[in-house]
Each structure stands twice: as C-alpha cells, then as structure tokens.
C-alpha cells in the first residue's frame, strides 16, 4: 500500500481560486476523512487525486510515483461517485465486472471475482438485476463493489452516503469501516457531515471556506483539541467565550468582561499564547458542563444563568442557558436516569460547572 503526497497544489475554476498551495500526506492503508463545508474545495481535491481535474500548480505522488500528469484510467485509484454513476444499460453483474472485462480478464475468473465481491457487500441475490430496480442503499453497494474489484491502491469516496436515510447511513458506515479494515486499501472519504467523518476516520483533515486545511489529526484529537474556533464549531458543537488571558500567582485565567475570571490550563505546546496581547477564545463543549439548580463543590469554574429553552434529544437533554452578559450557552446532559433526582425547568436559575482541564484556549 502506498501513501498519497499532495505538494503545493493550486486549482482555479473560471478565475476563482478554489485551492491554494495545499500540501497534504494521506497515510497508506488508513481510513482518511476529508471534512469541510460545501464550497471548501474538498471534492475538488478528491477529483485532483482521481485525475478528473489537473492542478494548476503542484504535484501529486502515489508512493514514489508522480501521478500528476497521469490520465484517469492509468492511476491505480478508483472512485465511488456521489450519485453512484452506475451504467444504466448494464445489470449488477456487468457493472461490477466492467473494469475486469475492459482489461480482458477471462470470463470464468470474472465470474468468480464478481460472485466473491457481491457476497462481501451482501448483494449476491441481486446479481442479475438491472440497476434501475435497486434501492439507493443497494445501488451504493454496487458502486462500491465495482470500484474495489479492481483492488486499487486508493479508494476515493465522494460523499457516498449523501442520498441515503439516517439509519441506513449508520449501518453502511460500520460496514465501510469493516471493509477498509479487511482490505487495507487507503480510503479517502469526503464529506460535509462531521458525524460520518468522526465515525469512520483513522485520520481526518478539516478544510475551511478558503480551501485550506485547518487541522489534521485523529477524530479524538480534532474533537478534544481543535486548533481554531472554526474547527471547534464545525466538528461537534461548542460554546466560545471571548476574554483576555491573564496569569495570577502561576494560575492562568480567562478574564471575561463583567463575568469574572475562569481558570484554564495552558499546555506546554501552547505556551506562545501567553506572549500574545489580543483577545483569546475559550471553547467549552456542551457535554463538559455540569448543570445544577443548587451550588456544588469540586469544580474549578462556574457561571450562573437562567434556562431559556430545553430540547429533548432522547439520549440527552439540551439546555440553552442565558448568562447575565447576554450570551447563550448550550449544555448537554446525558439522561442517565429514568427519574432524575433534580428536574430542571424553564426559567430556572442554574449553576454551570466545568473543570479547567476540559477547556481549550484558542487564538482564533
């Protein structure tokens, strides 16, 4: 298995710069997710890797091979398209067998390969059906089978679950993870859905609206230690507090106007923040708060507010709490008990507690 190295790629369409000087290494054999909002250039980047577009500047490497100028059909890379792009005049067998019959593989080898692949994606019963008779989920599997039968080095997936309903999406996500584990092929999965990305990825990259990569890391790294408010807001939800960074008696605080000082930890690699004079952002995720009507001991920080709205999510309840300075804070509480000991209702005055370790201090 070979990795993908993208070096200083730029791409414009009709004068509009989509991607500028982007460099990225996608590790071999891993499930890599490329996450970003619509218009961030993530699909363009995927199409550049597949060869459907050529970069204006920069090079793309597959292992040690420079594939920048190689046409689509000569790269050992296959794609699962967003709308599946199944050949409507061919049935399931013929679609999946396409790449093999093109190459001139003997008919019995093809039959054996196709039967095997269809079993892996649970489509053996549909082998002779015309593709128009399949459901969305089944078509997606055909598209997948058609791509992996070739045993490519890299499989590109362009928002493959976009057209499917939620339950089906969850199911297929798990299947994709298992397949990638079994095949050990490098998967590059493009999506705007952070839930999908967090679920499947071994490694992920977040792209912002300017076509640049904001952060690369494991899902956990990106979720717990985002490097910017963009990432913190895009992956999951968070509460951002603006304030100035102070140090008093060795302890760091974020000073929020009219609200007080809140303890924070600055890890060693973020020491440079202490030298900056401008305002900082404090990110506290909704699930990191403890909400209570009565005062409680044991937390480094607290703030008071009143419950403005309550949203029931089944597994959790979301409280939107209005602070004295007007800011609205989102709090998630897991519904651990059938009959909670303390019931929080509209307009209740509440305390929000959190630990300083659960805070991320951000520069931008």
């Amino acid at each position, binding site marked *: 298995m070979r990795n993908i190295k993208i070096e200083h790629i730029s791409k414009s369409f009709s004068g509009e710069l989509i991607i500028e000087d982007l460099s990225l290494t996608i590790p071999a054999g891993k499930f890599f997710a490329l996450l970003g909002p619509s218009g961030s250039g993530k699909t363009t980047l995927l199409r550049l890797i597949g060869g*459907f577009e050529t970069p204006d500047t920069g090079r793309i490497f597959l292992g040690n091979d420079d594939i920048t100028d190689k046409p689509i059909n000569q790269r050992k890379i296959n794609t699962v*398209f967003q709308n599946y792009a199944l050949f409507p005049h061919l049935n399931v067998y013929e679609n999946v067998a396409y790449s093999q019959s093109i190459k001139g593989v003997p008919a019995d080898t093809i039959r054996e390969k196709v039967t095997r692949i269809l079993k892996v994606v649970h489509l053996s019963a549909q082998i002779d059906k015309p593709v128009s008779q399949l459901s969305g989920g089944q078509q997606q599997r055909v598209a997948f089978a058609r791509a992996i039968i070739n045993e490519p080095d890299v499989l590109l997936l362009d928002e493959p679950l976009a057209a499917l309903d939620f339950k089906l999406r969850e199911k297929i996500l798990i299947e994709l993870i298992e397949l990638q584990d079994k095949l050990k092929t490098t998967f590059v999965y493009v999506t705007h859905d952070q839930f999908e990305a967090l679920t499947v990825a071994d490694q992920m990259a977040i792209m912002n609206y300017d076509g640049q990569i904001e952060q690369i890391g494991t899902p956990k790294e990106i979720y717990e230690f985002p490097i910017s408010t963009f990432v913190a807001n895009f992956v999951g939800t968070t509460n951002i507090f603006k304030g100035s960074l102070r140090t008093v008696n060795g302890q760091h605080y974020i000073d929020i106007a009219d609200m007080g000082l809140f303890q924070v930890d600055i890890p060693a690699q973020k020491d440079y923040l202490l030298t900056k004079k401008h305002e900082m952002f404090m990110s506290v995720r909704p699930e990191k708060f403890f909400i209570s009507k009565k005062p409680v001991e044991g937390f480094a920080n607290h703030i008071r507010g009143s419950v403005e709205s309550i949203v029931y999510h089944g597994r959790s309840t979301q409280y939107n709490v209005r602070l004295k300075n007007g800011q609205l804070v989102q709090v998630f509480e897991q519904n651990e008990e059938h009959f909670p000991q303390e019931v929080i209702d509209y307009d209740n005055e509440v305390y929000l507690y959190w630990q300083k370790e659960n805070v991320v201090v951000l520069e931008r």
Partner: protein
Amino acid sequence: MKQIPHYQQVKPFFLGIPGFVWQVLFFYVPLLCIIGLSFSGATWLSNFAPFMRASYFTVIGRSLMLATLNATLCTLVAYPVAYFLAFRAGRMKMPLLFLVILPFWNNFLVHIYAWTFVLDHQGIVNTLLLKLNLIQTPIHFLNSFPAVVLMMVYFYMPFMILPLYAALERFDRRLIEASLDLGASWWQTMRHVLIPLSMSGIRTGFFLVFIPSFGEFIIPEFMGGNKNMYVGTVVSDFILGTQTVGQGAAFTIMSSCALIIAAGILYLVLSRTKCLVKG
C-alpha cells in the same frame, strides 16, 4: 373526494382540437385520397399492374439504397461533430450551432447551384487540383453518383447533428468519468458507454434523414445527370407528367409499403443497445 368539474376534464381535449384538425385535413385526408386513387382503376388492382416488373422494383430498391447510404454516412460524419459540440466546444458551442443551422436560411436550389459551381470542370476543386499538377485533365465530379451522395449528405447533415447533439448534451458526464476511472480507454468508453446510451439519439437522427431521403429526387436529378430513376422521379412523371394520377398513387402506395418494411428492419437493427458491450 371533490370531483373535478366536467369542463376541467374536457379542457385538454379542446386544446388538442386545432392540432387534430390540422393533422386530419392535411395528412389523413390526402392519404386516404391517395389510397382511394390507387384503387380507382378499371379493376381495383389495375393501377398497380404496370409496376409489377423488375425495372420498377429496381427504382424502389435504388431509393432505399440511397436513403440507407445517406443516413449511414450522415451518422458517421455527424457523430464526431455532435460529440465535439457537446463535449469539447465550450464557449464556441452556440456560435458553432448557429453555423450548423445557417444553411437552412438559404434556398435549397441556391445550395445545389453553389455546389455545381464548386464541382464544375472550371470549379474551385478542379482548378486547384490542376494548378497543383495533381491531375492533367479536369475530373467529372458532376452528373455522377458520388456527387449525388455528397449533396445528399451535405443537405441532410443538420437533421442528424441536431438530435445527436441534443442527446449527447444531456448525457451524464459522470458515466464517462466512471468508465475512465475503471480503467477504460477513451475508445472503450465510447463503445461501451457513450454509444449504447446515445442510441436513441442516433435512431432519431437516422430516421429523420432516412425517411425524407427515400422520396428525394431533385438532388439525384441535378447532381446525377438524370440517368437513373428514383421513386420521386417516377411519381412525379406519372402525376405531373402524364397525368395518370391513379397509377402515380398506386406506385406511391407500393413504395411507401416498401419504406415501412425497410424502416421497421432498420429500427430493429438500431435497437440492440447492448450489442457493443459483450465484446
């Protein structure tokens, strides 16, 4: 459930009346007249008798052959043109399409005369070839079967290009990308994906050329030196020439039957969309 008021239910019918009347008046009524005329001889088949001989069957066969040849050549030449327009033309698409349609703005006879000047002994082609010393004496382009075919293809080309272009224009590009992605060459993609799936456009264009070409006789007359008879020539001779309308009508009916049978066969041939795939 609320019943749709009666006048709403019949409204579509009323909207269709003008078109229906037109069709009846100018197509079905004349058709019935021709059929009636063909059987109007001394005995009901006597108008058909003169045509039951090899020479007339040859005429029908010749027209069929010309029509098939014309439609086939138009397809072969128009497909690359339509492909270029749909996939490669970019911003030049509209201007180039305009150029394809432009000949329609000119009178048909003007085109014929123009080609006559081009292909004449003293025309551009011969003058050029003589000047370049590629030939010693001028070539007889005119009054030959090749000239007829050339003019036919030239004239009927837009009828082929436009439906083909329409079919290719709305073709899902992703299917081409998918084929290439799976390792197919450009030509394999054409054979296995583009052509099979644009077959309906090819069929449309083919018949738009084939059917009218069958009745074509002006071009063979002008460009072919009037040596051979085509269906149109015969009909025109009998109806306009000798004024034996009943026999002209009979021959028309005979030729039309031959045309329908031939068209049916060709349609079946052009319907095997997958034929190119298993190979």
